[in-house]
């Protein structure tokens, strides 16, 4: 089920009674808590690194970017509270890989020029694509149930680093106060409903 399909489904289920952020919020279900796990956390360096990557994905323009919107700490909170240990560990591995790519260009990601940052991130994006393709290959279809069989390794399926980084950045940014009120059209109490009106020049999409 893709995101759009899921969104449609939920909207339908509620007879349209659910607001967009509510729908967005359930797109990614959290997996049940592993037993006896230590809470996920990032080192200070990695905290700056995550904030920096988010800022490249959603940069400051005439409106604030991801860093000012607090996307970095948000991503750490989400990985700790909403994702499995395996997913969080895979994310940390991604950060490590990103840093070693950055070193090849002369230093830590944070210290690179914006062109170099883009280059590193493009590399991570390509790696995510390859990782996903690889995962597809090992998928087997069960003849009886028509369902995808376990990948055989018994390992939990995890989302590639770049994908989860990007997704949480976009989600975190557009649900932040900055993202919702400065980058989108935010109307807390509309007071009326008009079903079919001309689109105004420069009208931004609604935050809700």
């Amino acid at each position: 089920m893709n995101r759009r399909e899921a969104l449609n489904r939920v909207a339908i289920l509620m007879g349209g009674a659910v607001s967009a952020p509510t729908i967005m919020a359930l797109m990614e279900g959290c997996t049940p808590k592993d037993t006896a796990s230590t809470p996920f956390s990032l080192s200070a360096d990695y905290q700056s690194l995550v904030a920096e990557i988010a800022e490249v994905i959603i940069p400051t323009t005439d409106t604030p970017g991801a860093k000012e919107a607090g996307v970095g700490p948000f991503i750490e909170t989400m990985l700790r509270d909403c994702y499995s240990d395996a997913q969080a560990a895979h994310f940390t591995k991604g950060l490590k890989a990103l840093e070693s790519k950055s070193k090849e260009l002369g230093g830590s990601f944070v210290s690179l020029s914006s062109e170099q940052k883009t280059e590193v991130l493009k590399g991570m994006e390509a790696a995510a694509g390859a990782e996903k393709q690889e995962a597809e290959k090992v998928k087997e279809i069960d003849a009886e149930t028509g369902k995808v069989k376990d990948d055989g390794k018994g390992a939990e399926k995890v989302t590639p680093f770049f994908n989860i980084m990007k997704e949480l950045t976009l989600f975190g940014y557009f649900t932040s106060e900055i993202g919702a009120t400065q980058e989108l059209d935010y109307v807390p109490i509309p007071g009326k409903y008009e079903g079919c009106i001309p689109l105004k020049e420069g009208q931004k999409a609604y935050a809700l």
Partner: protein
Amino acid sequence: MNIQGKAKEQNTFDAIVVGSGVSGGWAAKELTEKGLKVLMLERGRDVVHVSGYEDMMKESWDFPHRGRVDKTAAEEYWAVKRTGYAANEGNRGLFEKDIDHPYKEKRRFDWIRGYHTGGRSLMWGRQSYRWNEKDFTANLEDGNGVDWPIRYGDLAPWYDYVEKFAGISGQKENWDVLPDGQFQKPMEMNCVEQHFREQLENKFDGRHATIGRVAHLTEPTEEQTALGRGSCQYRNKCIKGCPYGAYFSTQSATLPAAKKTENLTLINDKIVYEVIYDDDLGKATGVRAIDQNTKEEIEYFAKIIFLNASAINSAWIMMQSKSKRHPNGLGNISDQLGRNIMDHHLSSGAGGVIDGWEDKYYYGNRPNGIYIPRFTNWGNDKRDFLRGFGYQGRAQRKRGVPTDATFGATLKESLTIPGQWTMGIGGFGETLPSESNLMTLTDDKDQWGLPVIEFDAWWGDNEQKMRVAMRDEAIAMLESAGFQNVNGYKDEEKSPGIGIHEMGTARMGREEKTSVLNKNNQVWGAENVFVTDGAAMTSSSCVNPSLTYMALTARAADFAVNELKKMNM
């Protein structure tokens, strides 16, 4: 003895209403307005109108997980989570933690609960439709379940009555399949929904779309404003509680009306688990309850009792109410108590996108969608299954336009522009009554020492066949209306309960040997006990049921008070 006598006097009322949700609220309103001293017992905590809606004014950024379900909540709300929305951070406060209220599943059952004043009237979807004439005769015609002891004509004046008070907005259409009601001004359809409505009329015989009929005030009456209710403000944050009293809930509507009479006593935290039946008198004399916090046992007494604890819990109370006259539970000579569980099956439908209307938008968040009434097995339409389904859906503009940029300023910009129009429609299908779909009491006990329920219910062949049509007709209608990339879906992982429209555990009927309640919602053999929530339903129709619970409750309350006046109770 003296103290006990006094305690009994203090705990004696004209009527007891068990439960404070949609139907319990109506029972309390009707009975108090007719002059009875009424005790309303609610098993959960009190939620005070407006001040009790803790998340009501919060924004997405006020929630640390921006609404998503964290790992702890996923464990606590293991059943609620199955809905895909109700365990979300911003609204789960009004849903019950399943770990605190265990139940068992022989087959998976998604039991979604709200134990507090107002019950699920605070979180319902508010879609409000009348049943049609055939909904009341279908069982008789195709031989499933038992015949309803009432017909549409018996309920029509009571639909009028409850619609006027509750405030239902909708469009009159003059369709047999979806009888019109007493409507306030309809909400508007957006451009693409209007287009869809026209295309449906042009391309399909007997298929229609109308704006959803919802319990939201669009033109409040004097009676409604006098209770403190106002118009819908189009925030669409209804599930967090409505500060404007615009949508119908116990808190906004029936409770203030009942309180106004000064005849109502509301007591919270009392889990009613048994109806006290006096074999010598041949009637019920009260109820037994346990305090959810102190675990203290307590009895209350009254001339009449209304069970409105929700379909499952009303049956659960009756199953525990055993006496010489009722050895298998109250009104259960037929062995039908706890059987015939119905719900609406859903999660089958389609969605797509459409080009055009790029220069059009909408304003406000409409807490409502469109409705496509049943068309299968109606008129000339004949299918390989019985009965039918309606669709709920909506069109909206996506946020964001396509770009090659996968990150950076261009992506950021593209995500702020109103995008393509999308539309989705999903079916709500009728479930046939079946004796083998049931709940039982197990030997397991909850923290109050009360028996834990086990569910054993599933969709039958008829529902499975209907689900295929729900998906395929949705695809056909969207494609005919010019939508592209139409995705059909038929989710196999949803189970009964997911519609949160549980019905049928104490069905109405014409005979004691085949039903639990008579035509006035009286329990057979305990005629001063009335059950008017979803438990009473003899069949399920495909439309949302709450409006029918309201009408049944008002009708039964009127009957009860007349009988009381005639000294028949």
